């Protein structure tokens, strides 16, 4: 995956805009040109994986196709972080989310504490999450509480 070999054909690890930088190598530009979280689906067992690895973590097949991960999920558990590692401003909401694609992903929730509970419907969005020391926009991902859940 690191060498940009055939498994990521049609994908790019570089932001379209030089004033942007990806938060980590799990963000990429999909074949449709959109920024997305890079997951995968195994050709042998058809199960979804995140992150994309060299072999399928379920059946050990080497034939795993990259797959954009985005869209809907449900909060499996969550917390409000009030003491963080250096460089993070608190508080922020962190959740473990089961995406409908069939993977569990840990990430921050864009909404304030109180908007999230176990079972809350959320949507994963790849978006700017900050700025690095060189002034470039850092593109990462965040969960957003789905609108209908605000009611």
């Amino acid at each position: 995956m690191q060498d940009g070999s055939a498994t990521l054909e049609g994908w790019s690890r570089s932001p379209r805009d030089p004033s942007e930088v990806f938060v980590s190598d799990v963000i990429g530009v999909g074949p449709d040109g959109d920024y997305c979280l890079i997951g995968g689906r195994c050709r042998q067992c058809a199960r979804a994986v995140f992150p994309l690895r060299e072999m399928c973590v379920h059946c050990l097949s080497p034939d795993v196709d990259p797959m954009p991960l985005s869209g809907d999920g449900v909060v499996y558990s969550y917390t409000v972080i009030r003491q963080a590692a250096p460089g993070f401003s608190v508080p922020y909401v962190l959740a473990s989310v089961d995406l409908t694609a069939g993977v569990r992903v840990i990430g921050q929730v864009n909404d304030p504490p109180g908007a999230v509970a176990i079972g809350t419907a959320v949507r994963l969005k790849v978006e700017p999450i900050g700025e690095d020391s060189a002034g470039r926009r850092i593109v990462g991902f965040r969960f957003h509480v789905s609108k209908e859940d605000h009611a």
Partner: protein
Amino acid sequence: MSEVYIAGVGMTPFGRHPNTTSIELGARAVIEALQDSGIDPRRVEAAYCGSVYEGISIGQRVLAQVGMTGLPVTNVENACSSGAVALREAFLAVRAGEHDVVLALGVEHLTSKFAGAITPDETDLETVNGLTMSGIYAMRSQRYMHDYGVDHAQVALVSVKNKQHAANNSLAHFRKPVTVEQVLSSRPIADPLTLLECSPATDGAAAVLVVSARVAAQFRDRCVTLAASTLRSGELETPDSQMSFETLTQLTAAQAYERAGVGPEDVSLAEVHDCFSIAEVLRVEGAGLFPRGEYLHAVAAGEATIGGRLPINPSGGLLGKGHPLGATGIAQVVELVRQLRGEAGDRQVDGARVGLAHCRGGKTVGIDAAACTLQILVK
């Protein structure tokens, strides 16, 4: 395969040691373990040293301090299980017949390395997204409370119990008992976890001398049998994974019970990895020491307190005794050996015959832990 014994144990006081280096701490633990065993230091054939943040060749640096050079030394990093894995390597070397006398030690001067929350590897995706170790256990606590219908005050009782145990341990970092109200009203760290539900940053070192049956025969009254020492790595996290039950602990324990020829019903006391209050619940239920979803009721009934049916963390655990990462797994076994020998003083567990030690640590993206270890000691 031959039987394996622990012939000597030593540990420094756990706490803040601003004027002592990790090398000095390690050396003191090694000297105490050697003296405790009565075995000549020149008979030590190999050493394994666990640490997480101590840098290159900490084992050699500690052992040079006590004049032990030339022998094969292996440094072990396996997150919070580092010390326990160093002990397992010593166990395997003796069990395989390669060595008769092996030193296992663990050392960490954590207060000089960290301020704020400890995280998994800083380049890991989840760390980049703001995950901390306390955040992981906060999510597990939230889910456990949801799945088993218990409240925060019930979880907080684990901290109350362990700090009460630590009050009787002169080597513990914190020796002041706390009330459940104090736990709940202490500084919030990651909801629902508060400060008094989190193990502290601690400095300390611990060492044990692992010997073969041949050597144990000469030092029989000091020896306790190390009947099993098992290790597994973390499990894949999928939408089927449960945060409220530890399959990893269950599998690691099952292997240990089988090899030791004992079951959870035989265990007289256990030292388990209570890095956070909820962690103790997940450990003991995963290891089958208490039924799923019932441990907190047992804690409330006093069953897990010294004098109760099955004391858990009589040393005070990580919450009371402190958590110098690399030393933790060895220190748990130091406590068990002292308990099984009947040398635990004010915190002695009556009739202690079988002791269990559990460590579990780390996390990486998509995997629920780095390593999990289980040791079973028999009198």
